[in-house]
């Protein structure tokens, strides 16, 4: 069963990509709330309920984090490092979604503890398929650690 109460956190600054991702998730009938933050700092604020997210219930962690690598202020990789460094967010499922096929990025992302690394295809139909698979896998198939 998909725990649709839990949110999916999309960290992405490209409005077009945000909307397309939202559309792809909808098409895949993944009904979870999609929280969108547009840079790394905002993502940290969201996760730890600080800054503009002060007052958010910090115990409510997203079911899945979709992380774009190319972000303003704090880069995706730096953000990933900070997520893995903090006990509260260490076990979050983080799927890196990126346009980059560069080897360095892939290696680094896995080294820093990404759960998956997915290159966004140009072909939207394929992208939609990918999002659908990712959503199904990480929200349904994947056995998450307890106490999340």
């Amino acid at each position, binding site marked *: 069963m998909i725990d649709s109460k839990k949110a999916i956190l999309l960290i992405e600054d490209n409005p077009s990509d945000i909307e397309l991702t939202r559309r792809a998730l909808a098409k895949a009938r993944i009904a979870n709330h999609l929280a969108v933050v547009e840079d790394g700092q905002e993502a940290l604020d969201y996760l730890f309920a600080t800054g503009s997210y002060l007052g958010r219930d910090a115990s409510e962690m997203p079911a899945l984090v979709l992380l774009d690598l190319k972000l303003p202020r704090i880069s995706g990789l730096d953000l990933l490092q900070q997520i893995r460094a903090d006990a509260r967010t260490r076990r979050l499922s983080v799927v890196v979604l990126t346009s980059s096929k*560069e080897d360095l990025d892939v290696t680094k992302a896995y080294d820093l503890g990404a759960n998956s690394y997915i290159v966004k*295809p140009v072909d939207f139909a394929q992208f939609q398929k990918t999002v659908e698979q990712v959503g199904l896998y990480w929200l349904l198939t994947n056995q998450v650690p307890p106490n999340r």
Partner: protein
Amino acid sequence: MIVPDSTKQRSRVLIVEDEGIVATDIRTCLEDYGYEVTGIAASSDDAILEASKTCPDLVLMDVRIQGDPDGIETADILHRRFGVPVMFLTAHSDPETIERAKKTEPIAFLLKPFKKIELVNGIEIALRRVHAERELREQERWLVTAMGSIGDAVFSTDEHGRVRFLNRAAQILTGATLEQALGVPVTEVVQVAPEDLRGFRAALGLETAENGSRAKPEYRVVAAAGDTRWITARATKMEGLEGRPIRIAVMQDITARKQAERVLRRQSDLLDQSREPVFTWEFGGCIDYWNHGAERLYGFSREEALGRDPHELLRTSHPMGIPEIDGVLEREGQWSGELVHTTKDGWEIIVESLMVMVKEPDGRKTVLETNRDISERKRVDREIRWLNADLEKRVRDRTAQLEAANKELESFAHSVSHDLRAPLRGIDGWSLALIEDYSHQLDQQARQYLDRVRSETQRMGSLIDDLLQLSRVTRAEMERQAVDLTAVARNIAARLREAHADRHIEFEIQPGMMASGDPRLLEIALTNLFSNAVKFTGRRVAARIGFEERLSEGEPVFCVRDNGAGFDMAYASNLFGAFQRLHKMSEFPGTGIGLATVQRIIRRHGGRVWAEAQPDQGAAFYFTIGT
């Protein structure tokens, strides 16, 4: 005339007389005058026996002695066998006897009867004669021996230069015996070269010396053996016996010395020819030889250098110090090392020096110093070191620049893949959204246009992907290892079959193909070649794609062949350039980067890639991987 002292001593006389009274008288008389009578013999036999026993200085003998042989014969025996002089006493003076007696070379005749004083005087004179003759013989023997043993050729001549005597050395020099040379002019016996004859005659005093004649009295002669030898000659004039002058000429064979001199001169000339500076100096003393090489290097002429202390002249400088160098020379006989010298013009030069100590027979120590100017080499060495350091620095700088450029390229590639692909995805995504959400409001044409937008977008995406791959292939670190090409090819084939499940594609991959290379790069190359083959066999009902290896001139050549569209070999030169395409986009779509990528990978391995094809007859791509 020399009177030997022995006559004052007791001379010893043997009396041979058969008349007893006469013999006794004579004995008494002789003894009165201080002679010793060694015995009285009455017969020939007695006389010979006595003489052999006592060796008297003189024998007094009666000619008419009894026995056979008679007195004259006996005297002859005594004189010749024992060398004893005989004085005859006789009463007979018949000419025949006297004539016979003369042949025995008696020392004197004394006629009987004689007075005592006559006898004694006769004996005294006879003895003196004996002594004088003996003396003379001895001197003669001494002279002959001396003349024979000296190495110089000695001639004695009369005042006209005719040879009276020549010693052994002279005989060896001229090849003439005493008999042959006697009376012959010395200038004929000694065969002097015509051009030296005047000087030679002058040296012997046979001619007055001409003005300005050669300083060295050295003459060439043709020696007995026919070879030319060098001699010196000088002569002394002395008074002869009959008041006639005689000359003693002494000639010395100096051929060996001349040869040695020539050898020395030649060696010295050779040393002069040497470009290397060579000079000698007495150990602890002054320069006594200085060749042209030394003149050239140091600028000091021979005259300026000879007699100077070498270290002072050249301002020798060495970290060890000169006394230490001298110490090594004395202990080990030689020293070698680098020295700093100063030339006459004041330039400091560095020389590689070899000093060898030579001990002369007379105990003097000479040092032979051979130096080589290595200033230039040192300078070049320094320059090379400097150049190397500079080169290293430039290489470092260049490497840093390259690294910076590479970084830039990497970040460019990064940006391209992010920033160019994102809008493309947007274009594609929103086009699709239009098609999906508003298809009822769009007519057929509008939907086709949107499809066109999407396919162009995707083509752009492929172009970007291929370009990035090409740049990755160029930049990627290469790591050679054994690669199972058969296995790699089978994987690729499986993937392609899956991607083109609608098509019938037959892959023939030779088993057991191995290569040494970078596995990831080789997989990219093979993927490109296989994908091409799949693409260009798109119109075949049964596509056949083969991958095989064969040996060409000992080198493994790999080949990917297909039965596809092929191409015209006239355009084959464009085949491997980026963005080069041989087919229309409508026939076979593509970016034209695949083969450029293949070529780059093969070249990075040190291999070659080429193709053979005919339109519609399929294509074959060959490549080697190098080692």
